[in-house]
């Protein structure tokens, strides 16, 4: 009787919430995202012209880890992701605190900081390429006022990657800020009042109340900007195209360059390296960060 009832409910459930509602999404996602992902595991082991392929084992990967310009792409990707993610955490938190405090024209300030998030990455990249022009650029003009000769931001190998990372932070810090704003606003005011009663000064209140209780926001910003940083392509492409030399090449730009040159197998191997990289960094990290949150 009970089993029959249960079966009946389940059937009624299926009638009201039918599985075929998954179908359109599942077909599009399955065919255009999942299938190519699995196919890439195979094609990364081949020399491939899109029409013909020959199986060459791990040769593509061996090449990926031995050719200096491909290895550089890997190292640059890590540097870029860590630098942008770290800067967005620090600046996003500071801006979040400023923009939740009782500051003049708060709404306007929030809008100004957030707006670049919505602007075309390519447009931003091109504009900053002009602003960073070594002799005519506005940035170096301003620095020159203080009597310092600014470097060639995008053509000097020592600065190029960090200059692009700076623009990434400029464009993306608004998103980190609004995530922090949401996190800080949700901290109950009693904690601050209690801390004030105990005689904690502003710095102590930040260290003992805001920082630990805004932790979910920090975790979100770290994870989100790491994913974005590891995958980033369009800004780098708009500003340096990987140059000078290979000093700003990242895995995503290597994938594009190899694709353009017709090395489809190698390009796909790059893709496999990229998702192993993203998964190997993001999955354990979010696991660790979220677990510590539960313990605390």
């Amino acid at each position: 009787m009970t089993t029959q009832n249960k079966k009946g409910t389940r059937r009624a459930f299926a009638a009201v919430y039918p599985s075929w509602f998954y179908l359109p999404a599942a077909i599009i996602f399955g065919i255009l995202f999942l299938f190519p992902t699995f196919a890439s595991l195979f094609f990364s082991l081949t020399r491939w012209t899109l029409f013909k392929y020959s199986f060459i084992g791990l040769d593509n990967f061996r090449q990926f880890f031995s050719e200096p310009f491909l290895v550089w792409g890997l190292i640059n990707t890590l540097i870029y992701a860590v630098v942008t993610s770290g800067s967005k955490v620090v600046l996003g938190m500071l801006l979040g605190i400023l923009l939740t405090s009782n500051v003049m024209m708060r709404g306007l300030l929030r809008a100004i900081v957030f707006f670049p998030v919505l602007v075309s990455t390519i447009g931003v990249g091109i504009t900053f390429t002009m602003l960073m022009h070594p002799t005519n650029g506005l940035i170096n003009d301003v620095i020159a006022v203080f009597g310092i000769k600014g470097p060639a931001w995008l053509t000097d190998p020592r600065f190029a990657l960090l200059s692009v990372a700076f623009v990434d932070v400029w464009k993306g810090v608004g998103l980190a800020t609004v995530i922090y704003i949401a996190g800080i606003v949700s901290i109950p005011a009693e904690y601050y009042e209690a801390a004030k009663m105990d005689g904690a000064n502003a710095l102590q209140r930040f260290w003992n109340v805001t920082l630990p209780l805004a932790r979910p926001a920090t975790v979100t910003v770290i994870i989100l900007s790491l994913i974005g940083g590891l995958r980033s392509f369009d800004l780098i492409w708009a500003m340096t195209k990987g140059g000078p030399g290979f000093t700003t090449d990242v895995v995503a730009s290597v994938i594009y360059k190899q694709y353009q040159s017709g090395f489809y197998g190698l390009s796909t191997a790059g893709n496999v390296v990229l998702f192993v990289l993203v998964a190997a960094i993001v999955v354990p990290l979010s696991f660790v960060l979220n677990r510590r949150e539960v313990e605390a």
Partner: protein
Amino acid sequence: MTAKKLRYYATGILSLAIACIVFVVPFLFIIVNALKDKPEAARLHFSWPTETHMWANLIAVIEARDYMLITAFVNSIILTVVAVTGLVVFGAMVGFVLQRRPSRWSGLINFMVLAGLIMPPAVVPTIWLLQWLGLFKTLSGLILIEIAYSLSFSVLLFRAFIATIPRELDEAAILEGAGPFTLFFRVVLPLLKPVAVTVIVVQSVAIFNDFTNPLYYLPGSKNATVQLTLFNYQSMFNTSYNLLFMNILIITIPPLIMFLFFNRQIVEGMTAGAVKG
């Protein structure tokens, strides 16, 4: 009291000044240079143009390369509207059943949603597949790609919102004799308006600004989307900076309009999408 007030104004003005220098000056730089003539813009100075050439530049940008910007705008708008419609309807359908009927598939589906959010897509195999399907270099192909890549975000937001709609409503509708189709499209979907607006504005800005996917899946100047038009004016020796900046200005207008009208939804949507992901 006065000291406090002084500090209030001092920090306020200081923050505003820094925000303007860091975040507003680059936009002003775009505007003033979009108004200059070619030789003056080439100097890349941050100064008011000696003579404004707004109309001339505007017309030159629109006419460039056989009205490519117009074609690109039409392409981008079709792409954005159709893809976002698909994202709303299909995403809401998944979010609805996923939230209402937990089953042994739920775990797998949740895993897929997260994978779609984190994993970079495999580019060349996708091109190979699109060619095989006859969808490579077609707008329909790119529309399906944009839907596939953004579904996860849409599902997450819809599922979270549907959890706040009481089940009793479904039951009442069923008792009235509604089938699943009527229940979803006539009863539930209209209630999803707030979150649907969020998905629509966030995704339309993202898809309109997308550069990478059109670059890979819709190459060729006939098919250009707006982001690709920015490469029209860059050549090694003879870049028309005034037209380049005018072009940037024009394609920034749609996101700006979205921002002015839907500031709150965009900020909420991006925050919610980020936190839930």
